[in-house]
């Protein structure tokens, strides 16, 4: 929302109801929520790649990537890893519990630029959460995109987020879906093994000038993945990544998410192109 049209206090969260939750793996749970006010639930608009501030009175607030797609309005979905005070409390929430959410914030993926091009989505670990939003959006608006590839890497089969959802996507004929795990102790894993860059053989025939890449994963993944993408001669501004920072406000005031001295991740990010990122200091 732009400053000129802003009427409400942007720091006051909207009450939301937890509709359902279930584990995606041992530490990460899926949370589906809806604004208590049905009108607000249906009018909430956002872009894939944007985030929201989840608020628990008495604990505080933290930013979380939206995992659902605006092409399916009404419900918001998050994939949350239990990692600290805030997420511990979120994990105590039960179905029908009420808590606060405000947003959406951040720039989101440049959907309008991506439209008409091929799209390669590369996700590792928790990076599946924000990129699922982009993937579902593209699949829901299939005619507006060229070829769509999904390369998804997890450490083990048990750790792979949205496993069943992606297994089902393997059957689609409008998506090239490739899943890999670093290590499979079960011996039951039916797909690839090895790190996600092993899947780059599947991209041999892409047209680099007309392809956008969206990457999200653990810090170590970026280096190797970006090197592989560059080998394909993809322009740097067509390689998109989404970053994580500490945030206390989400609206460009508290200062915690600043990168390189003056880039507010919550305003200018969290989605940046590799070209933007190249000139940022203190990135990782």
């Amino acid at each position, binding site marked *: 929302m732009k400053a000129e049209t802003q009427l409400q206090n942007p*720091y006051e969260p909207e009450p939301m109801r937890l509709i359902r939750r279930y584990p995606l793996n041992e530490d990460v749970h899926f949370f589906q929520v809806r604004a208590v006010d049905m009108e607000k639930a249906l009018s909430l608009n956002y872009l894939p790649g944007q985030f929201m501030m989840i608020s628990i*009175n008495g604990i505080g607030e933290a930013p979380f990537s939206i995992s659902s797609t605006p092409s399916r309005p009404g419900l918001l979905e998050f994939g949350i890893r239990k990692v600290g005070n805030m997420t511990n409390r979120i994990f105590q929430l039960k179905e029908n519990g009420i808590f606060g959410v405000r947003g959406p914030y951040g720039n989101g993926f440049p959907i309008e630029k991506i439209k008409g091009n091929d799209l390669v989505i590369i996700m590792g670990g928790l990076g599946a959460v924000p990129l699922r939003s982009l993937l579902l959006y593209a699949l829901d608006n299939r005619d507006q995109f060229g070829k769509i590839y999904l390369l998804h890497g997890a450490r083990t089969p048990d750790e792979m987020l949205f496993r069943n959802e992606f297994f089902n996507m393997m059957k689609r004929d409008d998506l090239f879906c490739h899943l890999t795990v670093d290590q499979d102790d079960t011996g039951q894993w039916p797909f690839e093994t090895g790190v996600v860059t092993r899947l780059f053989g599947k991209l041999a025939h892409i047209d680099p000038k007309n392809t956008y890449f969206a990457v999200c994963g653990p810090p170590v993944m970026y280096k190797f993945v970006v090197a592989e993408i560059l080998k394909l001669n993809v322009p740097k501004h067509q390689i998109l990544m989404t970053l994580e920072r500490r945030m206390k406000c989400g609206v460009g005031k*508290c200062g915690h998410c*600043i990168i390189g001295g003056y880039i507010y991740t919550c305003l200018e990010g969290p989605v940046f192109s590799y070209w933007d990122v190249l000139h940022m200091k203190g990135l990782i």
Partner: protein
Amino acid sequence: MRAVKIKKENLFDFLEAIKPFGDLWGPVKSGDGYVLEKVTDYSNIEMSALRTRIPFKKLLFPPKFTMFKFDEKGIRSSDEELPRQVIFGLHPCDLHALLIMDNFHSLHYVDPYYRERRERTAVIGLSCFPDDRCFCKATNTHYTEKGFDLFLTDLGDFYILWIGSSLGDDMVRECPELVDEEVTHDDLEKYIAWRKKRESNFKLKLDFTGMPSIMELSYDSPLWDELGEKCLSCGACTIVCPTCPCFNVIDEVDIGGGTGERTRRWDSCMFREYSMVAGGHNFREARSERLKLRFTHKLQAFVGAFGEAACVGCGRCIGACPVDIDIQTVAQNLKGEEVKA
């Protein structure tokens, strides 16, 4: 803007006449320095005070305040009416900082807490003579035509009273008998002479030209590690800086647990936890990294879209840092100039 004159002997009567505009805050003596305090006895105002220890920002975004309260039913906005206030004695450096803060708090999203206080605030600026810590001339913030409702330029036995806003005009209209509408050619000459004298009084010669590009090139300079070794991470520099608005948000729960409030407090990018995310990864673990962040913000650019540095040359950090890491020593070090200890 419009200029009138007011005799020095009329100033206290003037301050009395503008009482309806709010509580008067001005610089008063405290120990060996000055603090910005609520004033009822006008003779306590230190007209020659240069910088107050903590700048005006404490009146526009207090060090700690309640954003809203909550209970089992949800959140409740505060319905408390904030008092009107008149801040007296801000010098051009602080007025420039005020403009930066006004801009910052309305950029992209309006901060409602800032706006609420700002809309209840009138600002009366006051001319000054630099001491050995002032370097507003180097930051080009030593004059201002904006940022105030009224501004007083001290020309001996009278002030030129600059009226910078409609609110300032309202204040003057409370007591038209105290001002002299006629500014003569003689007054203009006095004003020009005063400017010349003031300009020649800047003792701290700093050259800030090219600072953004030098910051860019010095990103990997070993200087940052040297400064990081000395820095105590105390945050004094950020507390006294008139353009440091960063904050933390902390929930306070009442005993019993069901009710509480969300509070906002000043935070400092010098603190270790500032850039730490859940799970413990810290994007600025080293003190040198945190120093670099602060000085990039001050000397290169504030917010990307702002495109300008945020240092106004008030000199507060020069006095506040216990180990002499301040905007002056950093800028001189980066430019390879001799630094006097």
